[in-house]
């Protein structure tokens, strides 16, 4: 399978009051085209930190990150912005839609930074909104949408530039269980369409939708069993 990115011995430390805290400890990870990976771990394990590094929003303290064959450490600010725009689609726990823009305009936002003309933006945005089942809500503002619908808009926004990878950090964290399941089912469909998805979660049931589960504990990444029952037990033990 074609490799999208590779993390090699990634270390992330924070220095707090003279004390060094290791948040990511020698993380090795390869993501290939068509993967659907869940990174499962308790709160404070370093999941968001890992996602920020994968998403080129943050830089590691040590190790190498190769994205599409290029070393991320060597990229300029403008190149990183371009990578975030074209290669990666973000989905956040709190949706992060701009309240003054309607669904369509929110989805168009990344395309503005991609420099697409207005008509093309509209076309692409409408297509992905239809893909996530919101063709009736394109002119609604975020406060006129339910949580699940807002997250669908956010997913549409992550899809619209046709990125190599969709990165979702706790995408169901702000949703009730049933809506969360629908969102995960949507990710499953998108993966079935051939998209690469990485979902970060503390919820084993959510992780169960992925085709591969990796566990993260205290900044260390382990391969996890695909078996859902075992996974649950393990998480329960960790609290």
């Amino acid at each position, binding site marked *: 399978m074609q490799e999208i990115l590779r993390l090699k011995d990634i270390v992330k430390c924070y220095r707090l009051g003279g004390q060094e805290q290791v948040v990511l400890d020698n993380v090795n990870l390869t993501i290939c085209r068509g993967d659907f990976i869940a990174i499962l771990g308790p709160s404070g394990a370093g999941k968001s930190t890992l996602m920020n590094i994968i998403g080129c929003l943050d830089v590691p303290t040590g190790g190498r990150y190769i994205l599409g064959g290029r070393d991320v450490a060597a990229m300029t600010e403008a190149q990183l912005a371009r990578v975030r725009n074209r290669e990666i689609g973000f989905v956040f726990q709190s949706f992060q839609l701009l309240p003054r823009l309607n669904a369509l305009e929110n989805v168009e936002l990344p395309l503005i*930074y991609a420099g697409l003309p207005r008509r093309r933006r509209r076309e692409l945005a409408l297509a992905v909104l239809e893909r996530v089942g919101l063709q009736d809500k394109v002119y609604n503002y975020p406060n006129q949408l339910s949580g699940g619908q807002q997250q669908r808009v956010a997913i549409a926004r992550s899809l619209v530039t046709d990125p190599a990878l969709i990165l979702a950090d706790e995408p169901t964290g702000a949703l009730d269980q049933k809506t969360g399941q629908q969102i995960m089912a949507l990710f499953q469909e998108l993966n079935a369409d051939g998209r690469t998805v990485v979902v970060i979660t503390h919820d084993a049931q959510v992780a169960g939708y992925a085709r591969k589960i990796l566990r993260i504990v205290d900044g260390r990444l382990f391969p996890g069993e695909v078996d859902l029952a075992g996974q649950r037990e393990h998480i329960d033990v960790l609290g």
Partner: protein
Amino acid sequence: MSWANIVNNKLRSALTMLGIVIGVASIIALITIVQGATGAITDEISSLGANILTVQARGTPLKPGLSANDLDRLEAIADVRGVSPTISGYVSVSHRDKVLEAMVQGKNELYFRERPVQISAGRAINALDVDGANRVAVIGSDIARELFYGQNPLGRSLRIGGSTYTVVGLLAPSGGFALGSTNKAVFIPYTAAMKTLGVRTVSSVEVHMADVARADEIIGQVEAVLLESFNYREQAYSIFNMQDALDVMKDVTRILSLLLAGIASISLVVGGIGIMNMMLVSVTERTTEIGLRKALGAEPVQIQIQFLTESVILSLGGGLAGIVMGLLIACAGSWFIGIPFRFSATTVIAAVGFSAVVGVLFGWMPARKASRLNPIDALRHV
């Protein structure tokens, strides 16, 4: 995007703009009024002719003024088109039982040819009148109304001092802001004025130059004539050059305008600080939005441009409102003071440019701050 944010914070944006509005309005109003006033004065002076030298002779104990011979010698200077002496006095002027005090001015034919005095009826004073010291008068419109109310003054008699004159011409009513009008003037041949007013020499004479470019040489020759005439006493006379007066006037206007603009600019700077303040608040409020935009692929430059655009819209909007307000104030002010209102495109363009510069200058720091926000910190700020 920038526009949307401004519209969504209407009240705050309006208050922020007010600082710029006041600054620009005061600059526009002050400069427009100053330029209107000085422009009116300058125009009047230059309409009198920049080609005229005015010679004032104080004289010496032996020789109180210029003689006819001196005038001939002044007229004989190369590139002098002619000389126009003035003999004036404030004396009583009467017709039948109506008497009034008026400024009686003795002039020659050149004065009526070179100066913008308009005859509305009859004729001007001509060379024959001057040569023969004819007792003829050309009178202003106020004098005509007061002495000859309801009748045609032409051909009627007029007593000036102790002599009887005949009215031969009427002047059209005139305006005049700086130098007064001719409405209350009585013009007679200067030769006749010398007799009537009992004056033997001329103490004020205008020298009309044919070529202004040679003004310096002509002034030199006029001085030579005067020096010789007054036995080499420099303090016996003075020469006043209209062009010099105009130049001084223009300098004064320029310095005054700059000074006023400088004072008013202080309020513009205060307005600019207001914009900076609002932009900084806006950056803090929209930290999450900025982080999100960065995560979606906005480059720092694009964020910076977004915020700069916002502050430029604010300051330009304030600037345009300020221009309208300033012009209205200037219009009302000019009317109140009684000077002409002059719209200066240069001032308006400068004000627009200035407010755009204020927007960029005071928006720069907040915009830069926004563009440098770390997206992770920004996104965690929920």
